[in-house]
């Protein structure tokens, strides 16, 4: 009995070690979306590129798309822009943009100057759709399957590595189980 008690500190240290080790490498600022497995919330917003047209959740039907939340005020969005261009051009990924809390003129200049990877851009100056999607910081990228259901949300910059490691597996899975 006494002998056993001598091992208690070691046991406690091992338990604490295991618990803490499980937390290493996890980024607490990246939260799982609450919308995974749910359809994109209903919305009705203007098209950035065609101010007269209105877009709604039906734009996500038919094929697997990336929904990329961006704004000209967001430095990291500038960072990932070239990678989005690469995805759209080389990988033929259909990307729908959500221009979040921005203004149209700046956004159009941005696309004109840097290129336009988006098949459509939803113009959300007040951030209403962003709020319904639980967007808490641009850039965010959602994977949306062909029936308009959210499969995954990536917070932060998309680059080649994120594409290979994170987004592509989700897209392949959506393709197989779509």
């Amino acid at each position, binding site marked *: 009995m006494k002998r056993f008690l001598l091992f208690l500190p070691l046991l406690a240290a091992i338990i604490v070690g295991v618990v803490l080790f499980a937390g290493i490498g996890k980024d607490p600022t990246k*939260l799982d979306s*609450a919308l995974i497995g749910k359809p994109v919330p209903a919305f009705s917003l203007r098209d950035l590129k065609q101010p007269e047209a209105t877009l709604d959740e039906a734009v996500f039907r038919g094929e697997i798309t990336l929904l990329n939340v961006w704004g000209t005020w967001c430095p990291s969005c500038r960072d990932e822009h070239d990678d989005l261009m690469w995805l759209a051009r080389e990988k033929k990924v259909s990307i729908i943009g959500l221009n979040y809390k921005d203004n149209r003129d700046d956004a159009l200049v941005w696309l004109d100057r840097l290129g336009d990877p988006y098949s459509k851009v939803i113009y959300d100056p007040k951030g209403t759709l962003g709020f319904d999607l639980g967007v808490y910081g641009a850039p965010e990228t959602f994977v949306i399957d062909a029936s308009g259901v959210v499969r995954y949300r990536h917070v932060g910059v998309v680059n080649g590595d994120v594409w290979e490691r994170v987004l592509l597996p989700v897209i392949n899975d959506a393709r197989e189980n779509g």
Partner: protein
Amino acid sequence: MLRILCFVVATVASSMTFADVSAVYGFDDRSEEQRYQNLIAELRCPKCQNQNIADSNSPISKDMRNAVYQMMLDGASDQEIVDSLVGRFGEFVKYKPDLDSRTFMLWATPAIAVLGGLIVVAGIVVRSRRTGTAAPTLSAEEQARIDRMLAEKNRNGSA
């Protein structure tokens, strides 16, 4: 003079930022305002992770406060308001998560720690009591021997 000027500017400026935070929303009722304050105090900002949305100045917290206020005006209950934000931003925004299989350890750890402590204390008490009662009572002969020894020691000590 410059110091006084700085003081005045600082004072006025600080009251201006305060006004920016407090004067945004109007309530007819004191209890409604209290309800609003309670709600935004227990909702957590998803961007600035260890602040509630009452303290945080991030745009998303502003949006969330706005949403809480709008829903209150529409007559939503506290539960409905919290559920609607959890539906968008996830369980993370609640400072008090629900009790389920994932959060079980979170809620149970304090109880387990207290219980463990009680068991240790009880163990110590029981053991000390057992050793206390286990001390054998002296027979008459032993008692007489002890008395003799003590008496002898006293004599030696005083000598």
